[in-house]
């Protein structure tokens, strides 16, 4: 499919033949917003493999160009390679030795002994496309000047927090949703109301007492201190309860006649049938926990237990001048979420649109 086809596909109207002026406006808006929304992220992806020099200069080219260098024959710093345009129009690749006034001292590649002078204006940088993967490898594997971005550890911490918290959230909230939707007991409605009411109380205003509680339980600087307080989310209980109300009671009764215990009914009947609601909650939970910043910031102060978000923000604070590392690490941080989004985009958007919860 050529570019023309793509454009036609993206801009076709349904059914009607010609474009109305409002259609033009629509597509103008869409293209403009595509630039505002996607361009920064795309540009960051592309820039994350550029050389520090290209980043400082804001090189507008899409591909990561780097100036070619050759080892110095005298053993000093690597020498930059330029294309020298002679007065007759022919070109030759030269290595740059040093400046002299408005001229530059260069030698032809392969002939380091014959250094000659040319006007600087006759030189153009000899560049090659060369993705600088060191942006990724150096901070994660080796050490940069000031600090290591221990990607694997942060990644593991983030994954552990996300997976554990999501599993526990699902189970704990599903149990509560089951109790609140399928049993009659005293105080049930009051309890459901309380849980909905806490939706309105922002967790941010109980930072201090929550910190003290977690601290007194000895969970500071422990990943469990990040996981446990977040698993009883009212959103989850509410979502699952509403869904479970739609599961017919006769199924539960059939299972009771089938000698299933209440637990077995929950595990073998209710959970599989609530799968659509559970997967929406799972997606939300993964998003919340992976992107969480404030609560980990308070609970985790030692870098061994940092999550990716904490690691990245610390890295940013310390390495603001090394954009090449920072961009690469940012890409690493957003990559997992992006992959999840690419594969589950339909589920995520329709799930969230249907529940109206984030």
């Amino acid at each position, binding site marked *: 499919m050529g570019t023309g086809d793509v454009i036609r596909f*993206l801009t076709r109207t349904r059914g009607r033949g010609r474009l109305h002026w409002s259609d033009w406006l629509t597509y103008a808006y869409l293209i403009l917003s595509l630039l505002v929304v996607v361009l920064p992220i795309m540009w960051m992806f592309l820039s994350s493999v550029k050389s520090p020099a290209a980043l400082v200069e*804001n090189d*507008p080219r899409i591909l990561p160009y780097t100036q070619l260098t050759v080892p110095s024959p005298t053993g000093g710093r690597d020498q930059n390679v330029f294309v020298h345009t002679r007065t007759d129009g022919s070109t030759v690749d030269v290595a740059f030795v040093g400046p002299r006034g408005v001229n530059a001292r260069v030698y032809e590649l392969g002939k380091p002994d014959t250094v000659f002078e040319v006007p600087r204006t006759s030189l153009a940088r000899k560049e090659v496309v060369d993705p600088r993967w060191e942006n990724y490898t150096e901070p994660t594997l080796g050490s940069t000047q000031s600090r290591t971005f221990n990607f694997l550890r942060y990644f593991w911490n983030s994954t552990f927090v996300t997976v554990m918290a999501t599993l526990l959230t699902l189970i704990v909230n599903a149990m*509560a949703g089951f109790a609140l939707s399928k049993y009659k007991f005293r105080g049930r409605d009051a309890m459901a109301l309380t849980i909905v009411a806490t939706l309105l109380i922002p967790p941010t205003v109980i930072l201090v007492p929550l910190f003290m509680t977690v601290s007194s339980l000895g969970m500071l600087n422990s990943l469990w201190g990040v996981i446990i307080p977040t698993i009883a989310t009212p959103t989850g209980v509410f979502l699952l309860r509403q869904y479970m109300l739609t599961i017919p009671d006769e199924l539960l009764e059939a299972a009771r006649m089938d000698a299933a215990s209440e637990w077995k009914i929950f595990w073998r009947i209710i959970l599989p049938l609530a799968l659509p609601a559970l997967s929406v909650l799972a997606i939300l939970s993964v998003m919340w926990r992976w992107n969480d910043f404030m609560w980990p910031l308070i609970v985790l102060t030692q870098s061994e237990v940092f999550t990716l978000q904490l690691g990245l923000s610390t890295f*940013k604070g310390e390495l603001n001048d090394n*954009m090449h590392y*920072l961009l690469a690490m940012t890409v690493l941080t957003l990559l997992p*979420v992006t992959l999840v989004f690419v594969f589950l985009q*339909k589920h995520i958007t329709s799930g969230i649109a249907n529940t109206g919860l*984030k």
Partner: protein
Amino acid sequence: MQVRPQAAFEWLWKTAGDVLDGPMRALQRHIGAHRMAYVFLLPNLLVFGLFSFWPMILNFYIAFTGGQSVILADRPLVGLDNFRELLACPSYLDPRTCGVAGYSFWTGLWNTLFFALVQVPLMIVVALATALILNRDIRARGFWRAVYFYPVMLSPVVVAVIWDWILKRRGILNAALEKAVETWNAIAPTFLMMADYRAINWLIDARSGWPMFWVIFVYTWAHLGFYMLILLAGLQAIPRDLYEAAQMDGTSKSRQFWRITLPLLMPTMIVVLVLSLIRAFQVFDEVYVLTGGGPGQATKMMIQHIYESAFIGDAKRYGIAAASSVLVALLLMVLTFLQLAVTRKKAGN
């Protein structure tokens, strides 16, 4: 033997359930099937009580204590001192007249109010416009929807890093603007030429309003897609035949919008308004990583004040933070009631 992944998963699921079935069945026999409801509720209630309900109560107590200890017993009761310190201001409108804690609190409060009052209407208007556009008969609606939603998935830290990079003094926005002016001057006639572009320090220039502007812009950029999605779902729930009927009646497009779309979208709009307002008052992550509250205190938000009072610096002023939380909670409660009252009045009409 060949093992299908699905069968393996089913077996795992069954086994996991059966392991717990023994003790649960014994428990059920002991307490009766009806009371199993409490067993199912217990884990949630424990966590909820310990990490939501109890802290809420505790917060009030801490607000009346002083000192720097995290151990409750070591915290002396100081009565209303914390509140007095926060509220003893000659003029609330000029936080500089307050004490140290009051300065931080009132700056954060006014910044947050300003932020919320500008950001929320702005975002709702843009989100609604976007939703209306996506609700038109366009191709690849799913693709566009995904485009707008993608930033919602990104973490606040990532969002802040990206935009910080773009908005640096030597960042790509300044470079692009400079290039644009240069190009313009190269092709424009003399009398239309512009002065050379001088790079602006978007996030640091304290005398301009740019830092707050970009904070609002970036926050909106990151959250727009979510509200757009909800509004789009609301729009798609409006029955098509209403528009067809209106068309048969010769109703103009704009009249259709004002008399059909907007009234029927109202419930969704109210949800969006309440959610976005509550969230805007809790803004912290993006702003904190992007500007750190700076320059000076220009973008310092309420939650940052609470966070910094309690957790930053040598003096951990938990009491001040807790007292501030109480005041914020009161503010949010008043706001919620106001919203409910307005909504109900609207519904009454």
